[in-house]
């Protein structure tokens, strides 16, 4: 009995010692299992997140806006794919946004968002993103969170090493994944080698308005160009591109493009390119590519075809391009905030390769070349390399930086993020991801000024992480706290489409700039109706234009007669509200298009081609007010040979 009691006391004392607030010491190492992980991602109802994250939708073609640390989704911005919710690509105003040299292309694969910068720091003006499949670059306003501009990239195919921004947003760079015949022509695929070329485009960005223009292209050898990173600080003026398939294989690349021990990182001196352009060393090539611009004043996009592009041939432009050999089909190409280190992640390599910009310059000065490829000097590997992170993991992909001397690299095959130290190349920490991580993002993590508090890992495979939803499951992002020595997994959150890459910045940079509504007096839409008394219906042959207004809680007019089968009816609808967050919608029975979702002060148009005689209703689709369900109207459709006069009324009376 006594022994039992002694054992009891001893046990209790030991338990007391352990239970007694063990968290104080253990917090940092226990990872996601700590109770306070929940508190650290919890944003109280009504409060705001600390960071914005712009996460690409990959094959959804869109860009989604999230808050960090909560992982809450705020908006999906339609960019390259039609979106019935917002009528993007469905209304008459935005259809031109998706025009290309191949006609209307309603979808793309959106990969790499990047935020505009001034002096190497995120300036909060625009977000750029690339469309991979039908090569395009889009610019999104961070005032309206709408796509304002899309430019097609000629001579490109698989626009993957895009859309990365130089440190004063002088250029957005866009590199081709596929090399192709330039100009395109009918030729045997087997003659790829030395006949195909890879175009790298430098898109000039207007410093005030953001308008994009392809300033020039560099016609590179027929390799695949995978990812890019503009120089920062001391390497400003250069852009670095990873290449693979320097074998120039045109089939079974999984084997045939993995033959060379090393491929290259291409270093392009764009300041040198500007000199050559000034000297007139470019060739003007015929081309055909769309330039689509959305105007906030007319609320309307226009599409123009551009017919030529200037190209530079590196063989004729000494000092424009150098190759730095980098092992095993490098994928990610990342430059640290100082601009000194260029990290190449050989997909199949056992180590990470780090080149030094200083070494590169020295090797160029000393002409330390190992021959050339199509006239482009190949720098000696041992001259540019400055360090290796040895055996860090399997399948390295991408690296970002915390601004405190640390780098973070993702590993696809070993499903982990590895933290290592710049300069000593030692591994400091590693944390698993769930599963098979691709890109990672630290807000500002590819600029000169990273905000090294959180890291978002974007995973390719989800499996069992959430409630299952049949064969297709959501893709997953994971949030880590990187403020301490060791990383801590805080949160999993599902994403829209494929979270391919992301850009992030402090909320304080953007919050106050967000537009609340469009001013009605500034509305320059050709079919705007700014007062109910101006609402009308106009017939031009078989075309009927309805100038309609909407305000809580009615349309004007809401009874329309004199429409005939065979007419093409344009509903030009203006939201007269001048109040934040009071959009109205409109949908017409049988219209072969989407609803309109119209912000205050905005005008949008949809087309309806009635095919059946009858009296057909339309209604407001956005729950706008207490009398939303009353916001509706009728259109009378008569036979094609009817004599019924056009009329339009509200509450039985004429509006005019």
């Amino acid at each position, binding site marked *: 009995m006594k022994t039992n009691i002694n054992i009891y006391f001893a046990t209790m004392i030991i338990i*007391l010692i352990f*239970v007694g607030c063990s968290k104080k010491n253990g917090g940092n190492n226990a990872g996601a299992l700590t109770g306070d992980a929940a508190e650290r991602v919890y944003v109280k109802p009504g*409060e705001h997140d600390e960071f914005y994250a712009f996460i690409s939708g990959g094959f959804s073609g869109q860009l989604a806006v999230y808050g960090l640390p909560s992982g809450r989704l705020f908006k999906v911005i339609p960019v390259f794919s039609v979106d019935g919710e917002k009528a993007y690509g469905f209304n008459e105003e935005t259809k031109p946004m998706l025009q290309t040299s191949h006609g209307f292309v309603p979808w793309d694969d959106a990969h790499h968002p990047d935020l505009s910068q001034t002096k190497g720091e995120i300036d909060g003006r625009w977000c750029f993103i690339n469309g991979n499949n039908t090569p395009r670059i889009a610019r999104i306003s961070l005032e309206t969170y709408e796509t304002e501009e899309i430019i097609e990239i000629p001579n490109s195919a698989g626009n993957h090493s895009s859309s990365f921004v130089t440190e004063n947003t002088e250029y957005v760079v866009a590199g081709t994944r596929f090399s192709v015949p330039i100009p395109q022509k009918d030729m045997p695929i087997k003659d790829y080698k030395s006949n195909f070329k890879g175009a790298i485009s430098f898109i000039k960005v207007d410093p005030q308005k953001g308008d994009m223009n392809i300033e020039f292209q560099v016609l590179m050898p027929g390799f695949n160009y995978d990812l890019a990173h503009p120089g920062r600080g001391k390497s400003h003026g250069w852009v670095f591109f990873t290449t693979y398939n320097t074998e120039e294989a045109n089939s079974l690349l999984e084997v045939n493009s993995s033959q060379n021990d090393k491929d290259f990182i291409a270093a392009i001196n764009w300041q040198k390119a500007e000199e050559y352009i000034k000297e007139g060393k470019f060739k003007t090539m015929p081309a055909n590519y769309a330039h689509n611009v959305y105007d906030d004043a007319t609320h309307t996009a226009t599409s123009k075809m551009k017919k030529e592009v200037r190209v530079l041939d590196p063989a004729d432009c000494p000092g424009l391009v150098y190759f730095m050999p980098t092992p095993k089909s490098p994928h990610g190409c990342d430059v640290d905030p100082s601009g000194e280190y260029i990290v190449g992640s050989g997909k199949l390599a056992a180590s990470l390769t780090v080149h030094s910009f200083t070494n590169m310059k020295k090797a160029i000065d000393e002409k330390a070349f190992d021959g050339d490829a199509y006239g482009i000097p190949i720098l000696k590997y041992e001259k540019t390399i400055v360090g290796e992170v040895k055996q860090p993991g399997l399948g390295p992909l991408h690296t970002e930086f915390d601004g405190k001397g640390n780098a973070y690299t993702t590993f696809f095959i070993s499903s982990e993020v590895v933290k290592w130290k710049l300069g000593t190349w030692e591994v400091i920490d590693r944390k698993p991801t769930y599963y098979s991580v691709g890109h990672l993002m630290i807000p500002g993590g590819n600029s000169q000024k990273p905000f090294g508090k959180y890291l978002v890992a974007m995973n390719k495979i989800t499996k069992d992480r959430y409630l299952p939803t049949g064969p297709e499951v959501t893709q997953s992002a994971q949030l880590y706290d990187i403020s301490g020595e060791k990383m801590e997994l805080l949160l999993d959150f599902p994403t829209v489409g494929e979270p391919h890459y992301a850009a992030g910045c402090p909320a304080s940079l953007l919050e106050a700039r967000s537009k609340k509504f469009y001013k009605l007096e500034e509305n320059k839409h050709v079919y705007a109706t700014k007062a109910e008394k101006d609402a009308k219906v106009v017939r031009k042959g078989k075309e009927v234009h309805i100038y309609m207004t909407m305000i809580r809680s009615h349309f004007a007019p809401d009874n329309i007669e004199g429409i005939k089968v065979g007419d093409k009816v344009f509903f030009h609808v203006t939201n007269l509200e001048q109040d934040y967050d*009071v959009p109205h919608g409109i949908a017409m029975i049988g219209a072969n298009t989407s609803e309109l979702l119209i912000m205050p002060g905005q005008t949008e148009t949809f087309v309806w081609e009635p095919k059946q005689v009858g009296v057909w209703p339309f209604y407001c689709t956005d729950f*706008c007010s207490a009398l939303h369900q009353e916001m509706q109207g009728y259109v009378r459709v008569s036979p094609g040979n009817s004599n019924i006069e056009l009329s339009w009324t509200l509450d039985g009376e004429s509006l005019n």
Partner: protein
Amino acid sequence: MYLAMKKLILLMNVLMITAVLSCNNTKQAEPGNNSPEITEHKGQASVEDTESAANALTVAKSLPDFTTLVAAIEAAGVEDAVVNAGPLTVFAPTNAAFNKLPKGTVDDLLKSENKSKLAYILTNHVAPANYPDVQLIKEAEKGRKLYMASGQYLDVKKTDEGISVGGTKILKTVKVSNGWIHVIEDVLVPVE
């Protein structure tokens, strides 16, 4: 001895529970932005927005003639309803209108114990509808009554002098972002 031991074990158990609890308490008491307590509810009336067109409450607040009405709205705690998307038609009594009430009535209504009574009186001044003056004339011509948020119906009449509602004259009409304000010269005391 056995009893003493039992007591000691009991004490030990209490100690341990206390230790565990106090540990939790310390954690909960830690200050910080992300502690899980919900902050005090703030309604839509607290939204700061200097760009949007002014709503019924903002307009009433901006005019010197409605200080009593605004005080009443705040005392009744119905600010959030007055800024709601609506559409709302507010019949707004002037300060002079409130002064016509028997002496002490307003002071009495503003007391916290009369909050619900005051709210009921105020709802008799709001129609959940979109009634510009031209629409009120039409309603009068059609012999319709106005259904108020209080549940009561008010007469609307077109007279030589203009429009009257519930027997009081409309002095002026103001468009607001979430509906209309019609200025009136009497308080519309609900019929009990």
